[in-house]
């Protein structure tokens, strides 16, 4: 048995857990650990420029690869800077391990230099957390942390390690456990067959069925089963913002995204359906709108989720099914095959005719602005065409995020990387770094806005250090577009602190200052050629500053307090 220090144990345990890459930033309390990293070459460490970016990069890595992202930060400000990224991962159920340094055990509670109660400060936004007391506990804690983070409903786990625990002078025998048992943590696997039968009966007697799936299908790797079930039934399907790509956007049965900025047809079909199958989605307020009593008034609600607490939290489920989506969907498919009931084809045809009428509204049609001005939607469409829909697209938060979700048709899961739950501006760029590390040869695009981008621009330096050829498409409307849109719609056009045009940097020069390529696109006829030029740089980061119509709004948009059928469709039209 090898004799290792606590710091060495930690890095060895990460390697034994299959970790290839960690994102971090050194500091006093983690210096022993960084020295252990120096002495090995199995686990690669990526030096970011801000701890928040480390968490978002690990998050992007996890969302795109399905493997837990790992973060290493120092105590105090290092730990607190990581909190936004931890909360982001928590809200979207992303597996992540955050290792934070802590002051010496005997110093805890004395308000020592760079001391903060990380376990306490992160408690509401973690799935679980550990404070390491003894070096010999490290292998077990690491094993438990990964097990908890990656199974069930995934989430971030914090491991807080006092500096003395990683002391290089104290060596102890190291053995990594093969298996771990937690008496208080059981992972639901299969769903209850009786409940699945009830759901199948409801689906097969439905006249106006609707399938609504969310991020759980992506996290639970249930996309294949979802496609099989949906095609077998011939039912319409919509995906949440978090679930895009789980069902191919190019498929005829796909009605687009639903919710606050969902398509007219998806939201109408939700409102008027008589049986709703919700899969790995949590009926959150950006879907249901604020008054859940108006949500799907005629529907029998079937809800599949791995987290029992997600069921009947906001909307009461008539048939709750607790289980991992993939095995539940498989059993559903089996039971449908064996059932003596059959899909009501006639009723379904009437339903599809109705949906096709809704589709005729063409709610995502772009109304051109004045001659030569670039519409943000057209920029996203151009990126989609140039990348042939094959890119990994991360986004920040705001109008550009919604345009990306609406106009970049995702046909595969894990391609759309965005902060849906917490809505973290500054997420997109570091997340795109994580994606690029997971898939060095893939096209990693960050569709962002100038407001969000400025929140983590320091990562230009990281991208130069590691030669990451990310393509940043900045839909620059010279304002906090979504804030401004709400101010236009609900505050009489009073743009309180949402504009700053006069103080924006020249982004292409900023990119160039770091050694990257900067391209500016100002006129509509330059859009395609200059974007093509940007994507032709295979080995370089390119920042594309696209000046878009500053007055454009995102539509459709749910009317607050209404039902899903109540939408604003354009500046002049409502449902």
């Amino acid at each position, binding site marked *: 048995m090898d004799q290792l220090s606590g710091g060495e144990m930690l890095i060895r345990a990460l390697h034994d857990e299959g970790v290839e890459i960690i994102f971090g930033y050194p500091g006093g309390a983690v210096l022993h650990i960084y020295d252990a990293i120096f002495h090995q070459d199995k686990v690669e460490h990526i030096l970011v420029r801000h701890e928040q970016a480390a968490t978002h990069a690990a998050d992007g890595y996890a969302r795109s690869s399905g493997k837990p992202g790992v973060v290493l930060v120092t105590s105090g400000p290092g730990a607190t800077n990581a909190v936004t990224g931890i909360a982001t991962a928590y809200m979207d159920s992303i597996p992540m391990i955050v290792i934070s340094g802590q002051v010496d055990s005997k110093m805890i509670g004395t308000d020592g230099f760079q001391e903060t109660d990380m*376990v*306490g400060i992160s*408690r*509401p936004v973690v*799935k*679980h*957390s550990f*404070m390491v007391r003894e070096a010999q506990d490290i292998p077990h804690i690491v094993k438990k942390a990964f097990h*908890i983070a990656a199974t069930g409903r995934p989430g971030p786990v914090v491991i807080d390690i006092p500096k003395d625990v990683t002391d290089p002078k104290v060596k102890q025998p190291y053995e990594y456990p093969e298996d771990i048992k*937690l*008496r*208080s*943590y059981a992972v639901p696997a299969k769903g209850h067959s009786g409940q699945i039968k009830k759901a199948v009966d409801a689906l097969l007697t439905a006249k106006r069925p609707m399938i609504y799936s969310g991020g759980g299908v992506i996290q639970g790797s249930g996309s294949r089963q979802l496609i099989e079930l949906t095609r077998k039934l011939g039912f319409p399907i919509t995906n949440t913002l978090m679930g895009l790509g789980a069902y191919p956007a190019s498929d005829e049965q796909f009605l687009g995204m639903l919710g606050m900025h969902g398509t007219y047809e998806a939201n109408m079909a939700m409102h008027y359906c008589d049986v709703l199958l919700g899969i790995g989605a949590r009926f959150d307020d950006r879907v249901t709108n604020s008054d859940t009593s108006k949500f799907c008034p005629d529907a029998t609600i079937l809800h599949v989720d791995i*987290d*029992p*607490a997600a069921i*009947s*939290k906001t909307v*009461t489920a008539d048939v709750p099914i607790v289980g991992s989506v993939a095995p539940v969907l498989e059993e559903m498919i089996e039971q449908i095959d064996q059932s003596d009931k059959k899909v009501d084809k006639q009723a379904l045809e009437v339903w599809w005719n109705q949906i096709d009428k809704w589709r005729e509204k063409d709610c995502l049609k772009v109304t051109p602005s004045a001659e030569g001005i670039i519409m943000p939607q057209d920029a996203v469409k151009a990126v989609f065409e140039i990348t042939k829909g094959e890119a990994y697209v991360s986004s920040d938060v705001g109008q550009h995020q919604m345009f990306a979700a609406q106009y970049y048709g995702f046909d595969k899961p894990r391609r759309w990387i965005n902060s849906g739950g917490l809505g973290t501006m500054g997420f997109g760029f570091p997340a795109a770094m994580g994606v690029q590390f997971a898939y060095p040869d893939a096209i990693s695009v960050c569709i962002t806005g100038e407001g969000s981008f400025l929140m983590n621009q320091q990562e230009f330096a990281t991208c130069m250090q590691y030669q990451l050829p990310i393509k940043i498409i900045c839909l620059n409307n010279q304002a906090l577009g979504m804030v401004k849109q709400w101010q236009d719609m609900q505050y009489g056009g009073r743009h309180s602190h949402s504009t700053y045009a006069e103080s924006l940097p020249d982004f292409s020069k900023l990119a160039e200052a770091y050694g990257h390529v900067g391209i500016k696109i100002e006129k509509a006829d330059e859009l395609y050629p200059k974007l093509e030029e940007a994507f032709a740089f295979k080995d370089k980061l390119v920042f594309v500053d696209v000046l878009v119509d500053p007055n454009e709004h995102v539509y459709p948009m749910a009317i607050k307090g209404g039902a899903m059928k109540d939408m604003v469709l354009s500046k002049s039209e409502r449902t």
Partner: protein
Amino acid sequence: MRHIISVLMENEPGALSRVVGLFSQRNYNIDSLTVAPTEDQSLSRLTLTTSGDDARIEQITKHLNKIIDVVKLVDLTEGAHIERELMLIKVKAVGAQRAEVKRSVDIFRGSVVDLTANVFTIQLTGTGDKLDAFIAALGDNVVLEVARTGVSGISRGEKTLAL
């Protein structure tokens, strides 16, 4: 409706704060809380009283169950159960008052556990309602200090909350 929820959890630092944190984080209220290790030193038993409609109580128990440190729990109010709370109460007892207070203590089956020339310290167990009734019976001018443990409870019959 009022519910009494008993929770078996890992007897580890941080476990209690996770449970208490859940309640403030999700805007659930705690009316009383009592916690101590069990006969199995690796487990603590925490009993809390809370209130809410069925949907809220369901969310509370689901979220409690999600906490990794929570091993098992039961909503005692779902079945027949015994509920007790212990109160230590200091009351003014001077002159004729002394006999009066002692009579009240006997009626409520409490006991005087300490006394001075002017003060009785009384111990009383029972349901929360009974303790409230005792305080009300003494009257406002008499009570000097009250220390209540919060509700503890156990189900009736052969049902147990154990591993």
